[in-house]
């Protein structure tokens, strides 16, 4: 028989004070973007000498993963599954700069090693001395949802326990600049993050972050159940309503059970309209957003899941996230719908106790 999968620990590093807690108490307002994370001190997690050569991406992901395991009371994970939109872009840039500037005459092994996209997952394994299954997914907006599907497969179908699955992506100045050319981000540096959903110009608020989760088949006291995940390439926004119905039916839930709908509104008016069908389909659920708090990035949906988990665990949401409906009083069933540039659509369904 299929096992159930529970989130028994979670940790998020974001532009908000989300680290090592169940709920965000005070929302930080920014006036420019990209938003950068509030990075905890790595000395609390490992020998700073060992961390010296680690990129910001690796540090961030490593701390979130270790903290999630600590919060779940797990020393050895049954699997380590990491998602990242484009891995260690800071190391890649360092290597390319060096290679092009010196016309291939100067070698830089450290940057090359750091540029390997699974270096974060490898570093987590080394930090924990874990010989377990170790995967890294890179599929833009589908990176985290497909990694999470793997985690669900492990726990539900393959009898694995304590699977740590999460995501990390950073925004570097070059990445911000080069991707702003293609209108991914808003052209103006001056963007008030908490008002971004009222803007009418093209492009999203840029950000970064990391969130990790521990999945287990045995619930802990405050465990939230991961009821289902879906990831679709090139879906139409309207199709996601039917897929959400399918996900709910599989989990034995009715549409009216969904009391919290979290969508990935990012401030780009055209992209944000792709959430209209799902919003109309769940008119009675509390409607919340999260990207004004952390910005848009390939794996922002991992933070979307963290905010949903946080709402179910703590029973409340910050005012700044809620667009419609109640902010407190507990939530039972949360659906997260996200898309990246209208191509990678995903759904994640959580159930509280």
């Amino acid at each position, binding site marked *: 028989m299929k096992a159930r999968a529970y989130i028994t620990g979670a940790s998020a590093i974001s532009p908000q004070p989300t680290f090592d807690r169940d709920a965000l108490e005070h929302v930080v307002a920014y006036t420019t973007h990209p938003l950068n994370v509030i990075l905890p001190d790595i000395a609390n997690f490992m020998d700073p000498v060992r961390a010296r050569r680690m990129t910001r991406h690796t540090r961030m992901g490593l701390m979130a993963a270790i903290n999630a395991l600590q919060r779940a009371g797990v020393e050895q994970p049954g699997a380590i599954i990491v998602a990242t939109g484009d891995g260690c872009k800071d190391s890649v840039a360092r290597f390319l700069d060096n290679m092009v500037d010196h016309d291939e005459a100067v*070698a830089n092994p450290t940057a090359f090693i750091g540029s390997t996209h699974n*270096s974060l997952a490898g570093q987590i394994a080394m930090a924990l001395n874990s010989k377990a299954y170790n995967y890294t997914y890179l599929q833009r907006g589908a990176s985290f949802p497909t990694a999470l599907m793997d985690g669900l497969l492990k726990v539900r179908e393959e009898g694995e326990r304590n699977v740590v699955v999460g995501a990390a992506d950073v925004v570097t100045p070059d990445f911000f600049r080069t991707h702003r050319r293609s209108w991914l981000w808003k052209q103006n540096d001056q963007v008030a993050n908490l008002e971004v959903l009222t803007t009418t110009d093209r492009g999203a608020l840029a950000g970064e972050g990391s969130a990790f989760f521990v999945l287990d088949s045995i619930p802990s006291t405050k465990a939230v159940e991961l009821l289902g995940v879906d990831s679709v390439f090139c879906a139409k926004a309207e199709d996601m309503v039917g897929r959400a119905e399918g996900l709910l039916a599989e989990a034995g839930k009715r549409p009216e059970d969904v009391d919290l709908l979290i969508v990935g509104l990012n401030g780009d008016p055209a992209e944000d309209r792709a959430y209209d069908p799902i919003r109309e389909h769940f008119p009675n659920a509390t409607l919340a957003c999260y990207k004004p708090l952390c910005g848009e990035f390939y794996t922002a949906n991992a933070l979307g899941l963290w905010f949903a988990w946080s709402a179910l665990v703590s029973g409340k949401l910050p005012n700044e996230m809620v667009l419609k409906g109640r902010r407190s009083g507990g939530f039972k069933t949360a659906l997260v719908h996200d898309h990246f540039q209208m191509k990678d659509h995903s759904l994640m369904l959580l159930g509280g106790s």
Partner: protein
Amino acid sequence: MTEHVHISGIGIISALGNSVDANLDALLNERTGIGPITRLQTRHSSLYPAAEVKLVHEDLAALVAPRSIRGWSRTALLGLQAVHEALAQAGIDPTHPRTGLISASTSGGMDRSESIYKQLLNDELNAEQEQYVGTHDPGEHTERIAAELGINGFITTISTACSSSANAIMLGSRMIRSGKLDVAIVGGSDALSRFTVNGFHSLMILDREPCRPFDEHRQGLNLGEAAAYLVLESEAHLKARNGKSLACVSGHANTNDAFHITASSPNGDGAFLAMQQALLSAGLTPDAINYINVHGTGTHNNDLSEGRALQRLFGPAPPPFSSTKTFTGHTLGAAGAVEAVFAVLAIQHNVCFANLRFQEPMIEAPLIPVRHSLHNQRIDHILSNSFGFGGNNSSLVFSAT
């Protein structure tokens, strides 16, 4: 394992040729694809040999012929070529909603992005360069191939260094076994780029001569480029459409060395665990394995570590084994899928392929690989190893249907 996962199509493009038949011909005739670098423009071309696909971008684009050639990186073109061949053999329609695409790559569109990188940063791109903006990340080639073929469902990319496409095969197999997909197109693609040549050069693990895996005097690896894909199918789906099974994916495992970010542990702990668990998942004992396609890169570190792991699992005389990287070079993210295609060929043609250029066994782990193709072998089960940076170790078991 409860349900069979069938392989119903294979496709490949490598330095050995642009099709499965061309690759098989080179393997059987012991004709290596490793030679002087002539296609890639790099300062190191006279220093290191490599296994190149000898088609320049325009010729490759003409061969593969996507609907529009705009914005196709070399990795994406190589990938599409191999996917086309695998789908044609399987005879399936990839637009079916329960069909997934799971690809693998270590460097994605790097062959293009490294040549426009400075122009992009300095805002000096010309119209020709402009088309390659946004083709850099490994997920891009998967997205592009999916869009070209009309795959609108589950797609993802795995990037775990040199075990990437072995892991793509494993994920596809697991998703079919659990009923999440009926068909999974799995494999990987990696084009040779200056980035990878310089990266491996910086690690000082490239051989200046054609590589000699498992030889006492081995000096390192040769890089290669390739794409290879397999069509995996559930038994029910294959039967319902009267498809033909070429072989089965019968076992798999992924473990971690947790030893060093780029080096394998001296005793091959991760490699041993991966092979042991793969056999366990296939329900086989070591003596059931008829042939091992080893990772065998030709570096001091890998071959010793893998050799010790082989000795630990199989004893002093393991079954026939060889590194086909002596033909294709190390094709990084594509290697696991390239070698999976070779495993299917080995099963189909009852042959163990050669480990070219081997002369003298390693003193510390004296093992003798297959020196020349062994024909008329009964091959029921093959073990295939792929190990990568980040301590990532994968083993797959392929079985005759």
